[in-house]
């Protein structure tokens, strides 16, 4: 097996065009760019919105929002205190799972756009599983030892199955996974809604939601502010999963095979890698990881399943792409998006700016990170003018 490994390692080295350092530079440049475009969006929005007292005047034009103030409030809303930090880390924790769900298949050359659906069904599976099992186990510490793993396993199983499906459709019917996973998101939302509405609905309160999970299964806030629904051990668990994924991808034969499929498909198949296996394995793992994220959303944040899940699956794509799809980059990248999510709530609450702004930034960052050529071109131009001095070796 080891000559095969060596060959793949050599392949990877020559095929990946950008070095790690360049990737990090591109990611940072993309974030700065997106923030810059965000300023324009805020200014544009501020010039058409109607408000009592404008926050800013530039050359006689009234602007309702001051971009600098927006960014400050956003920063304050994500790192300004114990509560804010826990809220940010809560989102970061969940994003690590959905981001891995994109990163693992990406390494195998597959696009899993379906983390959202896997997350939604995984969270429902966890909620229902815990509520069912809770009827036969006692409460307290014993209940906790049984119920928390039950929830995680149920989430992983349901999510994994929902990730397996598009993988199966790909290997059996050659259906493009981009299309199937996209459609599966819509199907998941509808299926979850109907299942809860018809079979698992809590009739004592209004809305489509399940009963609350028993207290023994809740992952209570620890060490940080109570109301932020954040638990430090869960965060550590998330980092552990990310580390495990890194180990899987870089230190195991399966990981090498996945990466070989992603970087040089023909050579990998020639070298004896089974495409069916790598596809099914990476998609199922991705679904399971997203499903665990969904389970934690129920156990740690909501305490039940309800409609209108946050778009963590799509944010996860952004987190993973910003991290260059490298598990090691997921924490800083996840922290940034956790902060955006947290800060988005703050700007809406304090300044009345729709938190949908965060969605725009998310898209911009994805777009820019997917475009390293843009920055390379700009770098070259600046270099030619003598503004900055960079080595253009990597730019062929």
């Amino acid at each position: 097996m080891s000559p095969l490994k060596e060959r793949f390692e050599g392949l990877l080295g020559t095929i990946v065009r950008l070095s790690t350092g360049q990737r990090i530079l591109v990611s940072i440049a993309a974030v700065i760019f997106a923030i810059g475009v965000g300023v324009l969006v805020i200014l544009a929005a501020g010039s058409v919105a109607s408000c009592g007292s404008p926050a800013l005047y530039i050359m006689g034009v009234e602007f309702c929002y001051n971009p600098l103030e927006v960014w400050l409030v956003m920063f304050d809303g994500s790192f300004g205190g114990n509560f804010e930090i826990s809220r940010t880390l809560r989102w970061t924790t969940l994003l690590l799972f959905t981001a891995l769900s994109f990163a693992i298949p990406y390494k195998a050359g597959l696009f899993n756009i379906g983390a959202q659906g896997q997350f939604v069904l995984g969270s429902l599976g966890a909620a229902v599983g815990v509520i069912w099992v809770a009827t036969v186990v006692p409460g307290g510490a014993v209940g906790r030892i049984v119920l928390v793993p039950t929830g995680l396993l149920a989430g992983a199983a349901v999510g994994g199955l929902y990730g397996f499906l598009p993988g199966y459709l790909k290997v059996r019917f050659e259906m493009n996974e981009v299309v199937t996973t996209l459609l599966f998101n819509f199907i998941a939302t509808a299926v979850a809604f109907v299942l809860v509405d018809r079979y698992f609905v809590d009739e004592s309160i209004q809305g489509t939601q399940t009963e609350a999970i028993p207290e023994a299964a809740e992952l209570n806030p620890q060490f940080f502010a109570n109301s932020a629904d954040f638990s430090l051990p869960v965060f550590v668990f998330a980092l552990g999963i990310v580390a495990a994924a890194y180990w899987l991808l870089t230190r195991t034969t399966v990981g090498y095979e996945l990466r070989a499929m992603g970087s040089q498909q023909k050579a990998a198949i020639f070298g004896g890698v089974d495409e069916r296996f790598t596809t099914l394995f990476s998609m199922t793992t991705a679904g399971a990881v997203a499903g665990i994220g969904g389970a934690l959303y129920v156990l740690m944040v909501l305490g039940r399943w309800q409609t209108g899940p946050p778009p963590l699956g799509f944010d996860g794509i952004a987190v993973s792409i910003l991290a260059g799809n490298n598990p090691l980059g997921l924490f800083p990248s996840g922290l940034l998006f956790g902060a955006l999510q947290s800060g988005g709530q703050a700007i809406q609450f304090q300044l009345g700016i729709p938190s949908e702004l965060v969605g725009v930034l998310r898209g911009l960052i994805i777009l820019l990170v997917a475009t390293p050529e843009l920055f390379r071109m700009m770098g070259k131009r600046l270099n030619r003018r003598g503004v900055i001095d960079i080595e253009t070796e990597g730019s062929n």
Partner: protein
Amino acid sequence: MGEVLRTAGKWIGGFVGLILALIVARAVAPPGSVSEQILDALLDTGYASAVLRVAVPVAFAAMGGIFAEKTGVINIGIEGFLILSALSSVVAVVRLSDAGVSPQMALWTGFFAGILVSVGAAFVFAVFVIRFESNQVIAGLAIWLISLGLAPFVSLILFESVNSPSVGTFGTWEIPLLSEIPVLGPVLFDASPMVYLMLVSAPLCWYVLRSTQLGRYIRACGDNPRALDTAGVSVSRTRYKGILISGVFCGIGGAGFTLGQLGRFVGAGETSIGGRGFLGIVAYLFGNYNPIASVGGALLFASFDALQFRLQQIAALDVPQQLFQVLPFIVVILVLMFVGRTRIPAALGEHYDEEE
């Protein structure tokens, strides 16, 4: 040409056969039963009109997708273009109506404003994937996610709600004499202008792709860009053209759906477009990149979508509405499983470096 006639004959034959089968089933169904009610709902000109109306955004999204993909560019951003066009058409209509423009005039100007915005967004997308060599799938995805955030954001800023106020629709255009024909008349000749546009566009697209110089360049661009380049035609320019045409069709789809059917923009959840762009992608995969067959696919999906409203009125059925809304997606996956392979353009998704 003979092949085309045979294909058309097959489709029309199949369709007529289906209708006849339904009529026979209706005749033998026990009176007063649920199946009789369902068949009544299906064999109704109102249902046929609804199918045509509902198919509009999906069909235009499909035609748009074909033009981009035939040049070799994967356009996942279709959904985003539809959303942007839907919102901007409504914004334009609201602004124009406030300024005192007559309703019909405002609607049509809004329609073109929607197309314009969609083409603008398509141009940005084109610059990114052609000039800056973005990963096409990710860039398209980004376009969707940006639109998904931007549209409700703009709606909140302008209308103080993610949903816009109602602006009305084009209504239907009744064609004199032809609309008097029994059964066919009210379905085909008393429809929304968008339905006419769809029915005219499909054969037009087919003709352009098959028989014009632009169409030949576009097809070569997706299948063998090097050959096109060698022949002295710019691959980049052809791709720009393909994506811009894609933007036009997506614009018609988004604005046409909003001003022809819904009458407002809804920004909650996945917005009022709600995956119709993605359905368009599946429609052209189903139609194997043939515009006419793809519009046929769109009509097929629409027939499920439109069925939902009808079946809901049959109390005995108790149809779960949410499930029915995604039924087209499920049907699509099943159909693609059994219909077999789609022949995708050979150079799809690959960046092409032109030789200087």
